[in-house]
């Protein structure tokens, strides 16, 4: 029983980068743009955040610069796919390759360095809250913020007029255009938002999660975020749960190994993927509903008046 709390806390910590990256990607995809460059944007965010943290020691400045850096990549991506209508998958893959190599390049002299994180004063305050404090106090404020992000994305998409417009642009860009909505601008904004969140996810990994920069740090988490959005059938709630499900299964398999549960470790390493796919497929096993959920114009370039 004493294992439950550490597992829960580790799960929340491990799931957080996926919450950021996947919710950002969800908004991007809801506007009809498929961004496969999340991994690359996370790498750039991670390295920029790390360098900023190394030189200034300012956590929030590091998060901001990571967001900006990833948004620069997202802007390049948008110019190519939204304005020039290049193939979204191809450009996205190129962004990942570019981001990964560019990240290694600028991070070269920082490899293996580590930053010493002072315990967050906010977390220390939170630990004083009765009951919840035991959990909250061990989590970085960036983890709490990811919950706010989830609430914000959900509220935005389903309870605001702007969210409705974003969804309309993803479903029927021509119609949205016909009634006067700026489809191109909306797609730009949504892609930039997705990029910014990928940047925060990267910053979280290099600063809060591991506190060091090294090549391979992101280790495919950007791809998992893209996959999560699909398996979650473009719904924020499922995306949010899916992120923790994946994080939880990863943590649980490590705990199971250390507890001496005798399954082959290779199989256990595959477990998070299997469990996440299985659960998300089960909850979305209604194929019609799933098809209805796909933003109808996802991946397709929009031509005004076309």
């Amino acid at each position, binding site marked *: 029983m004493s294992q439950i709390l550490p597992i829960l806390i580790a799960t929340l910590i491990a799931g957080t980068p996926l919450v950021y990256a996947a919710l950002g990607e969800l908004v991007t995809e809801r506007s009809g743009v498929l961004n496969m460059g999340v991994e690359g944007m996370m790498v750039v965010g991670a390295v920029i955040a790390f360098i900023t943290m190394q030189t200034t020691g300012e956590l929030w400045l590091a998060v901001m610069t990571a967001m900006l850096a990833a948004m620069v990549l997202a802007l390049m991506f948008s110019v190519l796919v939204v304005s020039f209508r290049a193939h979204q998958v191809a450009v996205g893959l190129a962004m990942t390759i570019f981001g990964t190599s560019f990240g290694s390049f600028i991070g070269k002299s920082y490899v293996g360095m580590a930053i010493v994180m002072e315990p967050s004063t906010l977390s220390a305050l939170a630990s004083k809250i009765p009951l919840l404090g035991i959990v909250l106090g061990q989590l970085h404020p960036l983890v709490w913020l990811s919950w706010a992000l989830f609430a914000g994305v959900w509220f935005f998409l389903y309870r605001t007029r702007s969210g409705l417009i974003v969804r309309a642009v993803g479903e029927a860009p021509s119609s949205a255009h016909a009634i006067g909505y700026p489809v191109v601008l909306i797609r730009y904004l949504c892609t930039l938002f997705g990029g910014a969140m990928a940047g925060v996810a990267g910053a979280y990994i290099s600063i809060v999660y591991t506190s060091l920069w*090294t090549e391979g740090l992101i280790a495919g988490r950007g791809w998992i975020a893209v996959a999560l959005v699909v398996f979650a059938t473009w719904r924020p709630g499922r995306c949010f749960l899916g992120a923790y499900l994946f994080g939880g299964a990863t943590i649980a398999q490590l705990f199971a190994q250390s507890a001496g549960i005798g399954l*082959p*470790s290779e199989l256990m390493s595959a477990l998070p993927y299997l469990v996440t796919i299985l659960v998300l497929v089960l909850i979305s096993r209604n194929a019609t509903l799933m098809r209805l959920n796909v933003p109808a114009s996802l991946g397709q370039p929009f031509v005004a008046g076309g």
Partner: protein
Amino acid sequence: MKFQSRRDFLKTAAAGSLIAATGVRPLLAADEVLKVGVIHMGPISDTGWEYFQANAWRALESAFPGKVKVTALENIAQIQDCERLFRQLSAQGHKLIFGTTFSQYASLKKLAPTMPNSHFECCAGIAAGTNLGVFEAREYEGAYVTGIAAGRMTKSNVLGWVGAFPVPQVIYSINAFLLGARSVNPDVVVKVVWANAWVDPAKEKDAVAALVAQGADVLSGSPNTPVQGLAAEEKGVWSIGNTGDFSRYVKKKQLVSYELDWSSAHISAAKAVMEGNWKPESSWLGLGEGGYVKMTTSSPELPETVAKEMKVAEDAIVAGKLKVFAGEIKDQSGKVKVASGQELSENDIKGMTWLIDGVQGTLPQN
């Protein structure tokens, strides 16, 4: 880049067979500078595997000031690129060429016989081949000595190990770590968690958390970065700098460490090439003068008595009096693998695929 015609190829092939037949090698002119080429598959950075490889050629340069010129290429991740660059280095007149990882071994085994103008050495290869020498560290000797510190300092009698992949080099280190710990504290167990990744710092950190939650209070593993030590420090438990000294990062809780020192491999190979008596040899060295494993920093909190015990064991290993894998050793199922009075052969150690009794964790089943 030089264009290689078929005639050139035939010439090299003929020269190759000549060497194979007679053992005659091109000698260095008296005032010639020895050009040495090194291909790193990863970035050199400031800690970890490639860093120690780079330290070796740096040591080589300072051992022969003005006599040796090293061309080091780093971060050549693709093996195809390595092959092309090995050829290029040889064509440019590098007489001695080093590969830094096991991943380059198969390529070098294929390439070395075709380039008789150069001499090749590969770190962590299996066996020497035509025109190819190999050198590898007996890491288990370092692991055994650090195990003594772990066995003395643990309060829970649970040690933790974060493994990258279950390859023999990692397996024999885990086993030696436990044997070292048990030599001073028979009740110790080692819990193992496999990350199944060479580099995934986030997962390594989670693995540390899992081990600590299971009661481990001294951690070791196979890290290339300080993340495991930092994670352990955060949890307030000891960590061991395995294959690297991370005390620069892990300020308070790094108990002891050992690191890899390949300088003697580089220096002796270069010396042999200069003197014209280089032979493709296989060396497997551990602790001791000129060895590839070196005990380094220990925490000021490590009691004097324990440091002494470690030193005694180290000296005994160097003198050949203490054999790490001497019987009686049982495997996890309780089967006697090494009978009392016997010791494990070098080949059995090099190919070790079983965990000893007292290691808690699983291995891939064959």
